[in-house]
């Protein structure tokens, strides 16, 4: 039994299945006839901790053997790959042709593209290039019954039938198992680098980000991190409470112009520190940030907030105020242009004056008061019992999601009990 097949401390009672292609995957699913049996699709197991605690499960459906790049049409800026291919293996091949897939999920050496899509994995490269679902142009899915089905295709513009791939991106493998994906690709920027500014206040972080947002700079990524993240990443910016990282790229002249605009904007601020990382050092910086997952993998709590850029400003202020009051050490990372925030704290050995459940509830209350949404992506297993990690969702949408779940997986064969649709 591989460690990667253990979900919330639970091992699959019947073991693991390792399909090598769509037909084997289809047979694996159709062979599970007993309606009591539960199958958990597993790619690289980098995001298996998400979701409600699984009470038991029977089969680990390990897709890591379906790892082939099926086609790379470099002149067409498209590719097709099996779901079990790791993000890094794909990016390595694409890079040879000066292209990349605009998805920068964590742990690309392990994370599979199927798992990244199914779990709607976040990334920082979303400012200019929008959402990773916008990179998917076609998808093949094996339904719980074993039926192989496809939608879309290897073309970049398509309105032929329902866009079924949308349901499976962020569907956590509850409607079917992704087996193959067609992507549109992006040319690699000829030059890239990261502008870093250290600030003393949240206000400066937001003001600077908004100015960048209003300028003609087109960042590949923009993130704000607090001193806890800076420390954990071993970045040396001692006098700053917050850092803003702006990743830019493009052709030579466009790259230099963007760098110049950023410097001009920065001159309006009393920043504590500034630095510019180019090429490889810039890559390493974002890799560190991308793979940062808190203090201790077993006890860390990770919350992900979905908001809008302006709401995020109030939200960060209120949460920071609360954290200061209870003296809790929290690592914070925000994407001001995209309106998202991640926070991490240790659920066991933290310095807070109040219980961890109270902290989680209070942060949730603040998020809701600011018209935003919170999903706890990572919790120590003992904290999962009975806790709604997904957060509230409007009744109408939830009813429809449950209807979809009943329609496509009536016995809840896939990932039973873990997704938002399976809550009472």
């Amino acid at each position, binding site marked *: 039994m591989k460690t990667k097949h253990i979900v919330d401390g639970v091992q699959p009672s019947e073991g693991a299945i390792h399909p090598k292609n769509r037909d084997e995957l289809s047979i694996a699913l159709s062979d599970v006839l007993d309606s009591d049996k539960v199958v958990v699709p597993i790619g690289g197991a980098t995001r298996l901790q998400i979701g409600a605690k699984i009470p038991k499960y029977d089969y680990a459906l390990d897709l890591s053997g379906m790892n082939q790049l099926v086609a790379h*049409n470099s*002149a*067409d*800026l498209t590719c097709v790959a099996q779901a079990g291919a790791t993000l890094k293996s794909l990016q390595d091949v694409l890079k040879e042709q000066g*292209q990349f897939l605009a998805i920068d999920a964590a742990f690309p050496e392990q994370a599979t593209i199927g798992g990244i899509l199914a779990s*709607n994995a976040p990334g920082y490269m*979303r400012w200019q290039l*929008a959402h990773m*679902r*916008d990179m998917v142009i076609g998808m093949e899915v094996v339904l719980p019954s074993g*039926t*192989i*089905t*496809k939608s879309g*295709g290897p*073309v*970049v*513009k*398509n*309105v*032929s*039938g*329902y*866009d*079924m791939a*949308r*349901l499976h991106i*962020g*569907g956590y493998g509850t409607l079917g198992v992704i087996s193959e994906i067609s992507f549109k690709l992006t*040319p*690699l920027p000829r030059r890239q680098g990261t502008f870093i500014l250290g600030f003393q206040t949240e206000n400066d972080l937001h003001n600077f980000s908004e100015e960048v*947002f*209003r300028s*003609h700079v087109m960042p590949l990524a923009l993130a704000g991190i607090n001193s806890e993240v800076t420390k954990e990443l071993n970045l040396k910016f001692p006098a700053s409470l917050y850092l803003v990282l702006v990743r830019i790229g*493009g*052709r030579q*002249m*466009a790259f230099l*112009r*963007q760098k110049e605009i950023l410097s001009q904007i920065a001159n309006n601020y009393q920043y504590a520190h500034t630095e510019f990382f180019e090429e490889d050092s810039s890559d390493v910086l974002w890799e560190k940030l991308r793979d940062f997952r808190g203090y201790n993998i077993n006890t860390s709590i990770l919350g992900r907030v*979905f*908001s809008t*850029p*302006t*709401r995020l400003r109030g939200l960060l202020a209120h949460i920071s105020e609360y954290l200061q009051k209870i003296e809790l050490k929290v690592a914070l990372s925000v994407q001001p242009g995209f*309106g*998202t925030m991640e926070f991490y704290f240790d659920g066991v050995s933290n310095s807070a004056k109040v219980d961890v459940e109270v902290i989680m509830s209070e942060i949730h209350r603040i998020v809701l008061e600011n018209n935003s*949404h919170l999903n706890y992506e990572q919790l120590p297993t003992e904290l999962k019992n009975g806790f709604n990690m*997904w*957060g509230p*969702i409007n009744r*109408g*949408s*939830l009813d*429809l*999601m449950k209807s979809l779940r009943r*329609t*496509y997986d009536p016995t809840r064969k896939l990932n039973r009990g873990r997704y*938002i*649709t399976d809550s009472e």
Partner: protein
Amino acid sequence: MSQSELLEIKNLVPELKNIVGSDYVLDDKADLLVYEYDGSIDRGNPVVIVLPQSATEISSVLKLARSHSIPVVARGAGTGLSGGAIAEHGGIVISMARMNKILEVNADDRYAIVEPGVVNLDLSTHVGPQGLYYAPDPSSQRACTIGGNIAENSGGPHCLAYGVTTNHVLGMEVVLADGSVTWFGENERDGIGYDLRGITIGSEGTLAIVTKISVRLLRSPEHVKTMLMAFETIEDASAAVTGIIGAGMVPAALEMMDHFCIKAAEEAVGAGYPEGAGAVLLVELDGLFESVEEESDEIEAICREFGPLEIRVADDAMEREKLWSGRKGVLGALGRLAPNYYLVDGTIPRTKLVDVLKQINELSERSGYPIANLLHAGDGNLHPSILFDERKPGDVENILAIGAEILRICVESGGVLSGEHGIGLEKQDQMPLMFSDEDMATMSLLKIAFETEDLLNPGKVFPTGAGCGDISQARAIARVGPGAYI
């Protein structure tokens, strides 16, 4: 629709008037005529038209319709080209004409909330003074509505770099078939749960009726450059397109027109396209000044490899507008070449442009029908337009068969049935070319998960059961009326 069904709907008119007001229910024969058709070849016969002003009114209409099992079709401006807004099974048409307000513009968060009846171009015009715009720009953007764009996941020339409608919608308020009102997504750029927003976009009004839309706004670019490249042959122009994309460049727009289109556009609007060219490319770049200039130099160098007859750069906004006027006016101008034309919509991998256009030209020569080629070439989206005269016996049958053959060529080349017009009625019987029975059954399950009674825009997207091109053709001929070809 039987006489008794028709009567049943007529009897509901007083109740419908109570819901939306007596001025906003139309059931007079002359009024109904206007709603029988859209921009496609199809026609249908709605029994009553309602023009609601709110989601609450639409909810009441749907509840009433459901209690009598009456089909309902939502309609924007009726510019659709695949019959999506046609009341194939009669029933009630809900026109969004009165739900045409821009409700909110949030420049800081870069979104706007609009009603579905807002005309596409009106939104960009409205937010333009704030340095913002809405990217999807279908050719009919002066008339088509954002609600209609959602139904068909519409594209447009500038969708090459910025994506189609689904890439620009953050959330939507919808009314479901049972009359319940809810939001799919909101103003955030991400969220949890199944992407109900994404699956509804492009579903041709078969899953829900959209009543409010939150759309992403983009920053107007610092610099825009438009170039015209003329080539001796369409093959040279196609090869240049493949070269541009293959070199890793994605312009804001990359359009192609063949010699038929050039001739028609010149006669109609005098866009200044060179005489004698086999094809022209219209290339537009936008963004940072430096970025645009660097890319335009590279594109020019690539195009020079294919022996262009002329490369011209628009010097100012007026010149740019003139170059675009030919492209935007070309469909209307095709009427100068033939009494009618039938516009086909398919997408192919961009590397297959040369081969597929060659096959289309051969088809044209074999059949004797001229085919004018207009392409969103950058994303491989073809719009071959078959020129014909409906008054000639057999022409209609022949051009429909040619259209079906073009789509077969597209699918066999690794492409798809529709790039931006949707399936609707026009291509539903060609779905088996692209999808297996299992694929279509899986899609049909989606409809069942949303509503079990199939009352929202029934009879669209999926094959009628025949799965045969000849039958599809016969149905189209039976439906079509004089002068209805676009």
